[in-house]
């Protein structure tokens, strides 16, 4: 069973890695952030699988922190997004 869980973690990582192509290709920065978000979920999933697969419950805490902060980088992105700033919206 442990082998299966670790194997599943590998597959998840490999799959979301494909999404990284979006980070490279873009075209918009929003796409890049989406890909990063997907990788975040995949990473959390992989960590949970590893935690169960290696009997190290403490690893779950790493996933917990990642889940908590996954939104954070995206929030920073939206806050500093080049497009809509309050003043721009008012002008249009």
């Amino acid at each position: 069973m442990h082998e299966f869980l670790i194997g599943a973690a590998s597959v998840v990582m490999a799959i979301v890695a494909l999404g990284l192509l979006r980070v490279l290709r873009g075209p918009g920065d929003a796409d890049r952030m989406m890909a990063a978000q997907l990788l975040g979920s995949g990473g959390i999933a992989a960590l949970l699988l590893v935690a169960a697969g290696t009997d190290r419950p403490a690893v779950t805490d790493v996933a917990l922190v990642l889940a908590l902060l996954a939104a954070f980088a995206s929030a920073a992105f939206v806050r500093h997004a080049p497009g809509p700033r309050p003043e721009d919206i008012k002008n249009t």
Partner: protein
Amino acid sequence: MTFGRDILTILAVTAGVFFFFAGTVGLLRFPDPLCRLHALTKADNLGLGLIVLGLLPWADGVWGGVKLVGIWLLAQLSGAIVTQMIARAVRHGGEAP
């Protein structure tokens, strides 16, 4: 008992992995950002949810189970809000076709 537990885990985790796969394909293949965003949300919610479901029987007591569900809820919550924010940014930013 053990056997049933293993079957549940294998099924749920496999299904979860499949949803991650679907989400990635969507992200890569769909033509416009909003569709891609949609695909991403699916993967986030269902993929992670199913994997958490599959791992619940292995959790470290009740507290461990609560933590697992909590992680899923957190990912749900931030995923949903972030998706909304990105969607707005995309619309306002004029990057959508």
